[in-house]
């Protein structure tokens, strides 16, 4: 096990509280946890790419970062207009 793999294994546990926040409670807290989850999973994909030496997987991290951006904006727009 190299350092990249170990880091990914440790970081994946941070998704547990984020999943809990994102699945319970008020909608604004869920959205913030969803944003944080997108960032953490992007970091995980970067670490796993290096851990497994599968360099094309870095595209997944980049794609997720871009998709999180679009998704975040859409969620914010939806929240402002429809969840009053």
């Amino acid at each position, binding site marked *: 096990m190299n350092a990249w793999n170990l880091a990914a294994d440790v970081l994946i546990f*941070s998704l547990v509280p984020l999943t809990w926040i994102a699945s319970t409670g008020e909608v604004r807290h869920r959205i*913030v946890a969803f944003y*944080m989850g997108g960032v953490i999973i992007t970091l995980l994909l970067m670490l796993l790419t290096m851990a497994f030496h599968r*360099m094309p997987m870095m595209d997944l991290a980049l794609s997720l970062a871009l998709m999180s951006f679009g998704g975040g904006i859409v969620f914010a727009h939806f929240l402002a207009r429809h969840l009053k």
Partner: protein
Amino acid sequence: MKVIAIDVLIAAAVLVALLSVLGMLRMRDPYQRMHYISAPAALSPLFITIAIFLQDGLKPESFKALVTTFVLIGMNTVVTHAAARAFRMAETEHWRPVPGEEVPIRSSDEPVEQKS
């Protein structure tokens, strides 16, 4: 020496992310919680990217990681602002201060009458 530097950078990236998640758990308000996205969105990918450059040098995956870092930093600033504005609009119909609200405002931010 290079291996140690890479390990330290990876550890720092993970530590920043874990501490931010713990800080987010401690906060009660969504506006406070949003602040904790900044560190893992800015510092952690930067540390990981530097570690990748140290390990692999000027390879395509290193530059992809750099682009991912820039996207995360840019995304965080825009999305956090958009989300905070959306939360505010969902609460008060408008993002500007309402009369009687004690917030530090600029002269251009005139209080707005709230719809009853």
